């Protein structure tokens, strides 16, 4: 299935997925108070000074061919679709105010600086805040219209319009904006009625007011940036699409306004092609045959094939990414089956029963880095945690103490008389995930837990929505028909990304069923921290809150129902003649700095 982006700039996204139970009122660690955070040193947190220094361009011209194995959906990245492939293909056509570098820093795109409290770009005013955004002076849209504060202001109205059909950004953050000053100038002040931590994820991408105004808001998704009329679109980035040969490729030419008003240099290439193959295997073969210059969207599972295909090792660029493979445990299901105390004891025991080292060795050949955190070590709010070590004896003690007995068949029986027989779900198209759950089943046997592994279609079974999928479909995560599900999440630069995953009201069984708190975690202390996080823009305070959240997450006593396994590798293949292609594991994707690429 498709690698997914999230909603804000780069929150967290499902990469693939997974499965039993009913609504959640239960709460892992419901009585747990936030642990005392080791106070992070209150030093200036720099989120925008990057180590990235591109080589000077020594040659320009020619045709650049980028390859993928998935077809993008729409130019409207992060607006009407959330595929990572959209960002790869169109993130460089429609720029944002800022984006993420390969070393996890924000760098300005259409703005000149990244506003923070520290640099004075964000000023707190009671409950609200003012954000000053300085646009690049003289910057133009591809049709020659200036990029101004009016574009920012109009997009707020446009995003909030009740006539929006299928827009995925929702109103989070936008609804806090009361006005945008600056008019047709380039120094803009955005007034927020409430402090909003995710403010850097707004205007991602920035859209041209004069183009949006040509059709009704309801028609924008289908009539603007239409795949059969890309030339009519208005763009801001270095290369703009001119044609889309469905099922085959997208063609681009340099955006003259970008190169004359923003980059102020010559385009690295005369034209660009985004070519997609049907599978990663054929994409690999195409790269080996020099059909393409850069081949993207690979991970640790592809490395062995790259070697056997005979790809030059110098062309393989592999780094640890922000995507982490994890097991989502459905706490509501455990609670329904075994009661409050039973679920908490079982979840705590599970944390000790995992042997992640064995999973790493046997499933991914030992090349991955195991983790007990949901963050990448490269983000500024990452905390080095002491991970629980595998301790089967301790897990058994916890279950014994909680009254779980062992039946004649070796399967534990909860104090309420129910056997601990659980359902593990994952995508049937991902063999390594099926193998991982099968290996886990053997590990859990040692603590008397029986796990039945059920591979199902990713969509619609595993991730079918509340209305799109029947309530009784086995393994459906939205309806909670699973005990444990394996899939991956992409952690973003913005800490607020976890809000949708762990805030209690985002339990998909509740409200409008659009939440992605599949694990049904309902922890008041965590909710409180997340609420604080949402309304905090002081980076030191944000980091303190994130440290506290990570403490809750990792401590087995809190029975947090998500167990991360290992980080994915982000792998890109690049022709050795290509320069400045820097592997970027963030949601900015590997085409993040295409304006610096050249071939020599």
């Amino acid at each position, binding site marked *: 299935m498709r690698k997914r982006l999230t*909603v804000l700039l780069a929150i967290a996204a499902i990469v693939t997925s997974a499965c039993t139970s009913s609504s959640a009122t239960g709460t892992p660690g419901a009585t747990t108070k936030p642990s005392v955070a080791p106070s992070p040193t209150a030093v200036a947190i720099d989120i925008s000074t990057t180590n990235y220094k591109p080589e000077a361009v020594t040659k320009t011209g020619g045709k650049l061919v980028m390859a993928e194995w998935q077809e993008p959906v729409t130019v409207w990245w992060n607006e009407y*679709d959330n595929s990572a492939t959209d960002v790869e293909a169109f993130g460089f056509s429609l720029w944002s105010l800022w984006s993420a570098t390969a070393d996890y820093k924000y760098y300005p795109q259409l703005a000149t600086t990244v506003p923070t409290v520290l640099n004075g770009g964000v000023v707190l005013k009671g409950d609200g805040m003012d954000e000053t955004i300085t646009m690049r002076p003289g910057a133009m849209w591809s049709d020659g219209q200036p990029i101004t504060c009016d574009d920012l202001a109009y997009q707020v109205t446009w995003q909030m319009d009740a006539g929006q059909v299928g827009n995925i950004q929702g109103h989070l953050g936008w609804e806090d904006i009361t006005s945008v000053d600056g008019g047709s100038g380039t120094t803009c002040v955005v007034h927020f009625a409430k402090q909003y931590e995710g403010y850097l994820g707004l205007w991602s991408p920035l859209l041209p007011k004069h183009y949006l105004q040509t059709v009704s808001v309801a028609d924008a998704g289908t009539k603007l940036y*239409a795949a059969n009329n890309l030339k009519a679109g208005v763009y801001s980035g270095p290369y703009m699409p001119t044609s889309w040969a469905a*099922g085959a490729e997208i063609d681009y030419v340099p955006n003259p306004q970008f190169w004359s008003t923003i980059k102020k240099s010559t385009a690295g290439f*005369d034209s660009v092609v985004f070519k997609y193959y*049907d599978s990663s295997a054929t994409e690999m*073969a195409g790269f080996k*045959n020099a059909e393409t210059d850069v081949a993207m969207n690979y991970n640790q599972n592809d490395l062995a094939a790259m070697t056997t295909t005979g790809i030059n090792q110098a062309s393989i660029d592999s780094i640890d990414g922000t995507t982490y493979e994890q097991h989502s445990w459905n706490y509501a299901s455990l609670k329904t089956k075994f009661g409050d105390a039973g679920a908490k004891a079982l979840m705590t025991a599970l944390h000790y029963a995992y042997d992640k080292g064995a999973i790493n060795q046997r499933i991914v050949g030992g090349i991955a880095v195991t983790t007990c955190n949901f963050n990448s070590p490269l983000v500024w709010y990452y905390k080095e945690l002491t991970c629980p070590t595998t301790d089967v004896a301790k897990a058994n003690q916890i279950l014994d103490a909680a009254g779980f007995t062992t039946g004649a068949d070796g399967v534990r029986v909860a104090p309420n008389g129910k056997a601990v027989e659980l359902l593990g779900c994952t995508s049937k198209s991902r063999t390594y995930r099926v193998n991982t759950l099968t290996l886990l089943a053997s590990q859990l046997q040692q603590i008397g837990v029986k796990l039945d592994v059920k591979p199902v279609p990713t969509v*619609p079974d595993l991730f*079918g929505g509340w209305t799109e999928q029947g309530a009784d479909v086995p393994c459906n995560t939205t309806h909670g028909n699973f005990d444990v599900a394996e899939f991956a999440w992409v952690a973003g630069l913005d800490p607020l990304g976890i809000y949708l995953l762990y805030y209690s009201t985002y339990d998909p069984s509740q409200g409008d069923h659009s939440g992605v708190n599949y694990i049904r975690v309902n922890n008041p202390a965590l909710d409180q921290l997340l609420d604080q996080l949402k309304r905090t823009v002081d980076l030191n305070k944000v980091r303190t809150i994130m440290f506290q959240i990570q403490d809750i997450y990792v401590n087995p006593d809190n029975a947090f129902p998500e167990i991360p396994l290992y980080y994915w590798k982000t792998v890109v293949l690049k022709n050795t003649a290509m320069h400045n292609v820097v592997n970027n594991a963030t949601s900015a994707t590997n085409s993040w700095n295409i304006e610096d690429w050249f071939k020599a």
Partner: protein
Amino acid sequence: MTRYIVRRLVGAIPTLFIISILIYGFVLLAPGGPTAAFAMNAKMTAESRALIVHRWGLDQPIPVQYCRWLGVCNPDGQGLGILVSNSGVPYFLPAAVGGGNNGVLHLDLGISSSKNGVPVTEVIGEHFPRTLMLAGVALVVWLTLALLLGVISAVKRYTKIDGAITVFNYVAYSFPTFWLGLLLIIIFSSALGWLPAGGMWDVKLDPAPGFYFGSSEYWSFFSQHPLAVLADLASHLILPVATLVAVSVAGDSRFVRASMIDALRQDFVRTAGAKGVTERRVIFKHALRNALLPVVTNIGLELPFLFTGAIATETVFSWPGMGKLFIDSVGKFDYPVVMGISVITALLVVGGNLLADIVYAIVDPRISYG
């Protein structure tokens, strides 16, 4: 004959009507439904989904949805008025006489939900020539080979040659298409580097942007460098055509062999031989012509393949044709495209059968539909 054709065409209407109900019904029964594509949008609210459902008319009763899709009901109408166009005539009539202008009957297959803003007819129109190229070449090669191998096998029946051809047929027939395709890619593309791994053209052939099969840039470049373009096209065709032919020729050559053996046993063939007609003439003039009759029927049934393409082969070789479009559309829950391809395929199957019957009458004077 004309009366027969008219009778068959009229008879096809209820068949196509039932097929259209089945196509619509299967899509309704498909897990997920037309809005399944939004299931993973974490911030797609219920309100937002409801707007889409309304916009797509999915909040209407199923018979009304079907009726609109077919082009019999007016999307703007109310009550019984839905059967009447805005001009006051039955909606199913052509727009030229005041009827409706959307729905299948008016050649409007809707808007692709995975390609924002693009009509289904345009999406299909873009992919069809590519499939025609692949399937057309494959069909010519495989029928030629099937005839040759079938005739040789029949004429040399029970000899070592016949045995070798039979073994080849069974082996080739046993290959799963996707497996054979991947094997060929590994050998001829990955390992040897002789042929491209997939696609239909080399994007680097022309340094100018927009170079892809069917674009004005493509034909412009072709007019200047015809040999280079043809060589490039041929290099991309070899592996997918080989895959299609290897699997398909096996079945058809067995079919020709059986027909040919029957024909060779006929009295008129023996008579021709006894009269001193050369063996080659007996085989190709007398026997093969008669042996072709059942083959013609088979070709008629294979005609839809020219449109739908070979799903597995196109997918494995990233050939951007109808088969790959169908698979991609299923994966993206693009129901308008899936239904559009299904409807056209149904039309072709019915049309192909009719054509086969007509050709049958032409090549076999004993048959009369009068």
